[in-house]
């Protein structure tokens, strides 16, 4: 048993302790103090994450078992911990962003009747996300993977009184469940073949697994990642998940949960990269998702839905970068995206908080630059970072991906540029519509006030991070090196060449200019085309028709279940069995009618019986 540093134990112990204290102590007696133990545990977790980052940065790593979870004879499934580059780097981002969002949530949720329940669920999610990042085998990963899904179900549906929230929660959970089908199958196949799903063991034997199996596993991993990280086929649950409170959207659907899918792909990258053609497939899926989402984001009216589609687009971008073989670029963008997308969501949260509603649409904002300067500043920084403008974290990470795209050449480069332009366009549109110039169609909120410090301070920190994280690229590459199997090309991150960065900048500038032209020079353009062609708007709201597919699937399933459950089982089979008692009754009545009670009939039967016996004896 190798020595497990106390930091790792604390990673689990602190949140568990906070949950226990929260549930048994503060909830019944002092519900409004529930956030205190939770925030404390967030601080401890951040400290441990930092220590582990330094631990891994200095070149060390570990992979050990805490206890044997499932056991059957000699076979067992361990509950262990794996501290390596990829795990710790994402952990650092998740713990820091998560802690700050916890702080923000204290302000946001103040006065909500479910305050205690919110923080317990929020922290359970935080714990399961941490567990997911540092588990050392697929079964344990699946444990936290599902736990994250369930937390998202309870948090999206936190405000149970809203029918839309309930529907969104159920839709999210069932879609994630369909996606988890893939991961469970993959884990079972691995367990069936090797009776062991530890990453270390699988990395060592990665070469030996037949490519056919690897291909199947790869596709299943992509299917699971598509669900959790909202890639093309299974992304439709994310925009609806905006029904939850803003901190939830910020933490889950921007920074942490949705990155779990990408994390899974990176974690199983040694198994995926061996299969020829699979990375390209991932790249294509990523690109398609990114472009489609960018287009949809540009046509949404609700602020949070725009950001939701933007998340889908950027996740597509990460998958695109990953698919092109640039693991470091993907992870780097994952980290930076975590920061600036959190800021955007929190700012949207502040706007909604000011409006007193859970979310606001573009027609309810406008010209808020002077009234909410700090929010505007943070929003501006995050927007620039998302658009990929220089000096921001987004610029570095997006350029790394563009660099890989240009290296790959052909369609990849075009897609990269399109994505860069698209994301710059929709974020600029949102920026101008919200903070610049009031338009006739817009009825801005009555008295927009700046958010209380407990909410604005974490946003400031995060926006500072959104800028500074970009310089950590080199360090991240070094960190990812540790714990990476030798068989796979070591991840590296060279600086983007001048040609690539200038092309990216040009695309971004083009997008921003287009947005400026459409929103500031012809201010009510956004509302005109909606009035003129409502059909087109409906098409965009319907995700170009893709949203009808899951609805059709669900209705087909319910119809089939009804046919089997009600018609086949109750009306046919059960009725047949009940019918048999009817048959018995009719035969019984016939039998008793046979006994007519007349003496000669009974004698007649006696003689028939005797004759039958006689005949039988004579025949044989």
């Amino acid at each position: 048993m190798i020595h497990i540093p106390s930091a790792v134990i604390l990673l689990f112990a602190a949140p568990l302790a906070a949950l226990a204290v929260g549930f048994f102590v503060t909830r019944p007696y002092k519900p409004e103090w529930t956030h205190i133990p939770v925030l404390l545990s967030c601080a401890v977790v951040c400290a441990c994450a930092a220590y582990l980052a330094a631990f891994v940065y200095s070149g060390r790593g570990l992979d050990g078992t805490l206890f044997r979870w499932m056991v059957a004879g000699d076979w067992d499934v361990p509950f262990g911990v794996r501290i390596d580059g990829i795990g710790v780097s994402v952990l650092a981002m998740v713990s820091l962003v998560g802690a700050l969002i916890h702080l923000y949530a204290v302000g946001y949720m103040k006065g909500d009747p479910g305050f205690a329940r919110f923080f317990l669920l929020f922290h359970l999610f935080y714990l399961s996300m941490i567990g997911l990042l540092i588990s050392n085998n697929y079964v344990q990963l699946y444990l936290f993977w599902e736990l994250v899904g369930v937390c998202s179900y309870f948090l999206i549906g936190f405000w149970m009184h809203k029918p839309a929230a309930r529907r969104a929660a159920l839709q999210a959970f069932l879609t994630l469940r369909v996606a988890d089908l893939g991961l469970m199958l993959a884990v079972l196949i691995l367990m069936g073949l090797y009776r062991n799903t530890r990453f270390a063991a699988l990395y060592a034997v990665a070469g030996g697994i037949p490519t056919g199996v690897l291909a199947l596993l790869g596709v299943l991993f992509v299917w699971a990642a598509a669900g959790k990280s909202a890639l093309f086929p299974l992304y439709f649950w994310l925009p609806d998940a905006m029904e939850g409170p803003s901190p939830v959207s910020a933490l889950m659907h921007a920074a942490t949960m949705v990155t779990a899918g990408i994390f899974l792909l990176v974690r199983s990258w040694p198994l995926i990269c061996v299969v020829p053609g699979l990375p390209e497939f991932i790249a294509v899926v990523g690109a398609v998702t990114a472009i489609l989402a960018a287009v949809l984001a540009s046509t949404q009216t609700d602020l949070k839905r725009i950001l939701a589609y933007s998340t889908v687009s950027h996740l597509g971008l990460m998958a695109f970068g990953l698919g092109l073989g640039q693991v470091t670029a993907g992870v780097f963008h994952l980290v930076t995206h975590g920061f600036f997308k959190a800021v955007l969501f929190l700012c949207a949260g502040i706007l909604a908080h000011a409006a007193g509603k859970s979310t606001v649409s573009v027609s309810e904002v406008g010209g808020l630059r002077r009234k909410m300067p700090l929010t505007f500043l943070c929003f501006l920084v995050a927007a620039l970072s998302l658009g990929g403008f220089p000096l921001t974290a987004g610029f570095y990470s997006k350029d790394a991906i563009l660099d890989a795209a240009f290296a790959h050449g052909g369609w990849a480069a075009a897609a990269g540029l399109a994505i860069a332009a698209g994301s710059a366009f929709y974020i600029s549109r949102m920026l101008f519509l919200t903070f610049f110039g009031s338009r006739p169609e817009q009825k801005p909120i009555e008295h927009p006030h700046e958010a209380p410090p407990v909410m604005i301070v974490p946003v400031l920190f995060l926006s500072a991070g959104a800028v500074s994280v970009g310089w950590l690229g080199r360090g991240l590459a070094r960190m990812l090196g540790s714990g990476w199997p030798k068989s796979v090309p070591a991840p590296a991150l060279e600086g983007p060449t001048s040609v690539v960065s200038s092309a990216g900048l040009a695309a971004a500038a083009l997008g921003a200019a287009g947005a400026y032209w459409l929103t500031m020079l012809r201010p009510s353009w956004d509302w005109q085309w909606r009035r003129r062609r409502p059909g087109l708007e409906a098409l965009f709201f319907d995700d170009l028709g893709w949203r009808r597919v899951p609805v059709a699937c669900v209705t087909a399933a319910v119809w089939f279940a009804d046919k089997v459950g009600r018609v086949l089982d109750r009306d046919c089979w059960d009725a047949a069995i009940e019918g048999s008692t009817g048959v018995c009754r009719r035969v019984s009545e016939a039998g008793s009618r046979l006994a007519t009670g007349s003496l000669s009939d009974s004698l007649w039967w006696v003689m028939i019986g005797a004759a039958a016996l006689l005949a039988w004896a004579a025949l044989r």
Partner: protein
Amino acid sequence: MTAMLWLPIAVLSAGALSVLAIGMGATPGRPIPCGLAKGVAAAAVLLALVLSAMTPEAVRPPLLRLDMLGGSIQLVFLAAAMPLLFVMTPGDEVPPALVLGSLIGMALVAAAGSLLMLFIGLELMSVPAYLLVARSRSTRAMEASVKYFFAGSAAGALFLMGMALHFSAAHSLDLASAPGPLGEAGLALMIAAALFKLGAVPLHFWLPDVYEASDPELAGFFSTGLKAAAALLLARLAGLSQGPILSILPWAAALTILFGAVVALRQQKLQRLLAYSSISHAGFMMLAVAAWARQGQASSAAGALFFYLAAYLFMSGGAFLWLKVSGFSSREQLKGLGRVRPADAAVLSVLLLALAGIPPTAGFAAKFLVFWEAFKAGLYVPLVLAGLGALLSLGYYLGLIRDMYFDEPMTAKVISEGRQDLDTAASSSVEAALGQRALVAAFAVLTVLLVVMPWLVDGLWAGGGR
């Protein structure tokens, strides 16, 4: 040694004569004390019971012989008479004498060494029965007795013709198998008569009418005593047959089980329901006899047949006695009895569970032994049919329990109407009703305790299943 053999029959005859003597002594002015006649009869039966239990095995004089099967079944039908004599509504001295007469007939069948003895025993046990049925003045009883007489005599005549044919082939009236078609034909007719007495399906139509019309305790005696003797008669005859009859017997048994169970499902009168259930149980006895005969008269199968009859004695006898004590006649009256009179309902439930063959009761042990022997004899398909018959029988046994416990008690009218039969009995002698109720409860307890009997008796049959 042969003297020992005659002793039970002699005691019974003496008993019958003394009862008749008492009767003659009574002048119209001075009716005989009600219990005296019954008391003397009961003493005679008890003495016969004890004596036959002590009779040594397999004594073989020409006319009489007593083997294990006959001796043990003799115990059964003698024991069957006891509750009848105890519970019978006291009247003049004739009924006890008739019962003793019938017992003599059965004892003859049990000890018969030759076909003639069988025929005489057969007739002697049936004729008193016709009169016993006709005892109560009701028109239904009269009709039943007439039907019983004509059907019974027809069967007797068949037996006689069979005996003649058998005699022509074997040139002797001994209980020995006769080669040639004539012998088999004679045997077939004789077995038809035995099946008639047992109530096998095509020949059963007299049975429900007789059981429905006669008093419950008398029907109880018929279903236990007479049926045991008929089963013994069938066993004796089946023993003679080389093969052809034996191959049809199991199928007749399966048919009887299924038909009896199906028709009993929809019976509304309780005694008629128990009649059809006794037909179904007769099927099981036939199955046991078939298994016994096909295994070369193996002693273990004889044990199974004996235990089935013994268990059936307590189950069916108890059920009929319960009807006598409670005075109910139709199924509706049983509704909600579980709440109105929980004690009676519990007793009847135990008896019904035993009749259905649910494990912790002797009924299950009996059915298990029959299944066990039938399987060893290779009667696979009739066995499965018998199993399904048991399932069907569950329909009405459980149905009665369901009516008693799960339904709301019927309106006061039906209950009260049921109750006065009881009241008349109760008013005449409350302790009699109480005594009878205790007897029924004893029967119920015995059906549960008897589940272990096969294992106790196992030693008796030279190692039972070995």
